[in-house]
């Protein structure tokens, strides 16, 4: 489905599914298939979820809304954890990061 680096466990699968509810409002595609999520890590001792992600462009007008929605959706699926966003533009987002499903969606749109 995606190129996201995860611990490959059930928690990460659930977290990724939760993040598929977060849409880029301009494109109409979820941020996982859009390739904005780079890495998900669960820290069991600290009860924290680290989400390394990017935006289609720096200072994207919808950026804060998207990162807020990521936190809210992770909190909803994992109420006992605290979500932390690591926003990175290294590497910057590019169209190659869009998943196959995402490409199909954009082709049909």
């Amino acid at each position, binding site marked *: 489905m995606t190129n996201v*680096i995860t611990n490959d466990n059930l928690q990460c699968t659930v977290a990724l599914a939760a993040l598929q509810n*977060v849409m880029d*409002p*301009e*494109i*109409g595609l979820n941020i996982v298939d859009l390739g904005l999520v*780079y*890495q998900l890590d669960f820290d069991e001792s600290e009860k924290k979820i680290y989400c*390394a992600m990017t*935006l*289609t*462009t*720096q*200072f*994207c*007008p*919808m*950026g*804060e*809304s*998207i*990162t*807020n*929605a*990521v*936190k*809210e*959706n992770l909190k*909803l699926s994992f109420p006992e954890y605290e979500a*932390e*966003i*690591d*926003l*990175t*533009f*290294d*590497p910057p987002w590019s*169209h190659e990061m*869009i998943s196959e499903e995402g*490409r199909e969606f*954009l*082709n*049909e*749109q």
Partner: protein
Amino acid sequence: MFSTTGNTEATKTTSWKVVLPFYGYAAIAFLIATILLLFSASDITSHYFLPHTLAIIHIMALGWGTMMILGASHQLVPVLIEGKLYSNKLAYASFTFAAIGIPLLVNGFYVFNMGLHTQCGGILIILSVIAYLINLAASMVKSKQENVHAFFIFTAALWLLATAIVGLLLLYNFTEPLLPKGSLNYLPVHAHIGIVGWFLLLVMGVGSRLIPLFLISKYNNTRQLWWIYGLINGGLLSFVYIFLYTDSKSLLSIPLLAVAASIVLFGDFCFKAYQQRIRKKVDEQMKVSLLSVLMMLLPVIFLVIIITLLILSPKENVSLIITYGFIIFFGWITAIILGMTFKTLPFIVWNKVYHHLAGKGKTPNPKDLFSKKVFKWMSVAYILGFVMFTAGILFYSAIVLQIAAALLLLTSLLYNWNVIKLLMHKPVSL
């Protein structure tokens, strides 16, 4: 594989409080311009240097085009330069100076009194541009990211300052002779550094970033953009030199060719971006914006005809010059604003209204905050009005001009309806 910074600074966009006043002001200016056009439609064919025509041109250029671009650019500059806007206070200052200066200037033209009030209007507009330039320069210095789009915007803003200064000089020249010749003689310099240096350069700089971004296109060609940048600035500088220091009309073909080549290159850039898009469906707003890229060629064709006729005979063809001005302000600039308003404003309003609700429940899509039906009717009224008005000037038909002006007024009413609908939007949960 990638480095994380842990910061979310790059999500901080320009506040809607800075941007929305520019959008609201521009919408009202467009409405006033089309009302004035309706009342002056039959006189417009007589000459371009008439009080009402000058007033309409300046509302369109400053109140509509410039205010809208300044507003959008305060929102988009962070995206283009990859850095935060330096100061909201400077943005408010820029708005306030222009918002007071434009009516003073336009009223002066309308009643044809170039006295103190009109001159104050011109000075306030210059202050507004200076505030914008300082904000832009400081944002760019802070960002430390160098990119071609930032150069386009900054240079365009410098040309805007030059346009405003030359404009003020021409104003003073009416009451106290400062220049060797009358103000009318310098009008082409004032007009073209504004049209080409400010509008064309800025639209290309912003468009070359936003069009591939909105289309999710694989295409990017920085080298081509630098060529466009060089051709426009080289063409404009050579135009100013040829116009002021030579009497040769045929030499004017050099800057004309340079600017025409830049438009062809930009058209090629947009076409390739369109061809290599990943998102297949192109929405109506994007279609209107792409149409405006094609419309850039129309003024060039008219300019070729005007210069050719000037070479053959020194007498100006007034109706061609009026048509040329009309297709720039009511054609190309208006088309791009009509399209881009509904590509940017819904997101600004959505951020204002739903930002705190993101992820907490279902919210409407930004695209659903305005009426697509009204947008469609606005586009139809606009295209009909634009084509008919152009034909009306060329064929001296008062009745066609009157009907076309009514259609353009309808365009601005429908545009304002949708803008008000957006600005007054209250949160709804789905």
